[in-house]
């Protein structure tokens, strides 16, 4: 960044009226500048601040480990879930984290297929975030089964017990949906990393670093054939990942929608869950990127325009989610089903009304601030709002799970759910794991897809150095030399013909 300090920053020159290509990366950076500003964070001495942050995050992850060990030793009873609320915080947290894990692959796959070139600056970090969020999510159902040591029973592995998973259960569909989403996301992320790994391999100065990065770069040389195969693989993986982005949270919503509990049994759930997942995932990307671009000096790549686009998506999906909340009420009234109506009135005005109105405020009302251009381009506003959105989305899952269960068909078994201390430490600990992994990512992996960013820079255009009249920019030398006029070229042509 030292060589660009005199340049206008991304935040200032948004209205300068540049063409589309120029506006994606600010600060008049060259290809080499991009390589330098991204790679150096994996190469330089680890800053003290990173150690402080890592120490904090990993001690929170240690809290997760302790909580889970305590839970395994004592059983699921250490959590607050019990009849009638048999699904307490673990399921709330699972859906919360899986939801966050939607942004990365959406940005990488769907926006790729729609040729949204602004995605290149954030897709690497967003995909990493996706992977880590899905890992955090998987912890909760894995330990919620109680006998975590036989969790492999959820997979259809031939066994002498002749025991197969219940294929009719949406919980099993969840196992397949989330695990295939994780695997495809991981492969997609890794394939996208290969050219950049080769870049840091070629820049590495120590033997060990050369070996490690060289191993993961899979012998990438940047040859034309490599690029051709890479582009093809990337496109195919994007095509494969796209339906998964939509299917995973649809299947997660089936956990609820397939059952016959009032408040759960609605056909609106799949699209409403997917919109909510994109909403929360984008909010998490904004939270992380606003901080990372500042600390790592990436304002010219992760520009204000990119953040604004993210905020527009948050506004759109937040409004879809809010519309779904209202539609649920309409359907409860329109269905004339007494139980359904009761479930929703109880949701908004019953003992959990506080949670319901937190959800409504955070998810429906707060994103509406993004209608104002000034607010959606303000770093403090978007940072605060992105956190508010994720608080709201956690409460959405809380409202759906808890309020629908706490009053079932028998008034004698009605209850009020309260989390335990271990519920809280497990949830806080999951954030520790998430940030631990994310900090490791920031330290050791190029956090911006360098090759892809270069691909959307103006210099990548084959006609960039061409003024349009066959002459290279800034000179009077013809860009394409006629063969007869240049004996050197003529010679080369003969050599080529002779082969």
């Amino acid at each position, binding site marked *: 960044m030292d060589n660009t300090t005199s340049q206008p920053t991304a935040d200032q020159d948004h209205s300068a009226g540049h063409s589309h290509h120029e506006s994606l990366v600010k600060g008049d950076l060259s290809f080499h500048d991009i390589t330098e500003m991204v790679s150096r964070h994996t190469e330089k001495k680890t800053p003290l601040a990173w150690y402080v942050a890592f120490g904090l995050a990993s001690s929170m992850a240690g809290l997760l480990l302790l909580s889970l060990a305590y839970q395994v030793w004592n059983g699921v009873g250490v959590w607050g879930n019990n009849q009638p609320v048999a699904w307490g915080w673990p399921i709330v947290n699972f859906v919360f984290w899986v939801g966050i894990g939607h942004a990365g692959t959406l940005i990488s796959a769907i926006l790729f297929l729609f040729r949204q070139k602004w995605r290149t600056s954030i897709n690497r970090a967003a995909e990493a975030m996706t992977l880590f969020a899905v890992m955090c999510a998987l912890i909760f159902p894995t330990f919620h089964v109680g006998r975590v040591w036989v969790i*492999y029973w959820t997979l259809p*592995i*031939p*066994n*002498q*017990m*002749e*025991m197969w998973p*219940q294929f009719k259960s949406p919980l099993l569909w969840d196992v397949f949906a989330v695990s295939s989403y994780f695997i495809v996301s991981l492969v997609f992320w890794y394939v996208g990393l290969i050219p950049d790994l080769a870049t840091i*391999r*070629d820049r590495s100065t120590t033997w060990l670093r*050369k*070996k490690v990065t*060289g*191993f993961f770069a*899979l*012998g990438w040389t940047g040859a034309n054939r490599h690029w051709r195969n890479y582009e093809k693989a990337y496109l195919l993986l994007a095509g494969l990942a796209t339906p998964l982005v939509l299917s995973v949270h649809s299947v997660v919503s089936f956990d609820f929608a397939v059952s016959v509990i009032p408040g759960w049994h609605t056909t609106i759930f799949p699209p409403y869950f997917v919109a909510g997942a994109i909403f929360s995932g984008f909010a998490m990307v904004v939270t992380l990127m606003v901080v990372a671009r500042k600390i790592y000096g990436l304002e010219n790549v992760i520009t204000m325009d990119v953040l604004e686009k993210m905020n527009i998506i948050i506004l759109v999906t937040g409004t879809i989610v809010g519309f779904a909340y209202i539609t649920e009420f309409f359907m409860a009234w329109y269905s004339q089903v007494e139980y359904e109506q009761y479930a929703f009135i109880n949701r908004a005005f019953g003992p959990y009304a506080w949670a319901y109105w937190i959800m409504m405020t955070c998810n429906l009302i707060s994103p509406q601030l993004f209608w104002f251009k000034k607010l959606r381009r303000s770093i403090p506003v978007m940072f605060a709002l992105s956190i508010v959105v994720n608080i709201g989305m956690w409460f959405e899952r809380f409202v759906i799970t808890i309020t629908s269960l706490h009053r079932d068909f028998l008034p004698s078994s009605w209850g009020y759910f309260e989390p335990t201390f271990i519920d809280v430490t497990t949830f806080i600990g999951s954030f520790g794991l998430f940030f631990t992994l994310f900090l490791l990512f920031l330290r050791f992996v190029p956090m911006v897809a360098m090759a892809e960013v270069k691909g959307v820079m103006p210099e990548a255009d084959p006609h960039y150095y061409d003024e349009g009249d066959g002459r290279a920019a800034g000179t009077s030398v013809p860009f394409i030399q006629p063969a007869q006029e240049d004996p050197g070229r003529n010679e080369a042509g003969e050599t080529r013909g002779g082969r």
Partner: protein
Amino acid sequence: MPQIFPKKANVLPILSLGGALLGGVALIFLVWYYFSPEFLVVGYQPDQPVEYNHEFHAGQLGMDCQYCHNWVENAAHANVPPTQTCMNCHNQIKTQSPKLLKVRESWATDTPIQWVKVHHLPDYAHFSHASHVNNGVGCETCHGRIDKMEVVYQAEPLSMGWCLECHRQPELYLRPNEEVTTMGYVHPENFVEINLARIQEEGIQPPTNCSACHY
């Protein structure tokens, strides 16, 4: 730039792909065999506090299983007999045997003998002895030839797949109720037809749904 890895590193991708495939198959086999009750628990033969000899009592003396395990017809649990049952005979026979010291101690102090359970089902699987014994499932079908075991060991895996084999085709395993406690029972030649007729007549329908045992 010199090459970082030698040329033979090119086989690594194919090797790892093949290794992953083979490893996957091997892993499934390992789980299938080594994680199975057949491998883990068949042959389990714990030391008992009293050297009670089933081979002698049930085999040579020909005592009926139900003399000691007398609840099997009526209860889910086949009881381990109380000291009282031992003393029915042993206050007359071998009253001074050192092997029976613990039994006499238990009798005198009114504290039960801590027998070690051999056939152990997981706590999420419910099994009723009564419904099996009263429908023609022989003791030896699950417990093996007790009359030949000096110290009892687990003869069958008692795994779910093993249970289901009989629940799906009970006609291959049932015997007349009066032969339930017989050891070394030999099926008559046409036993499958006999059993099928009995199943039809008595409406024996061993359940294979989850909640039959897991509730």
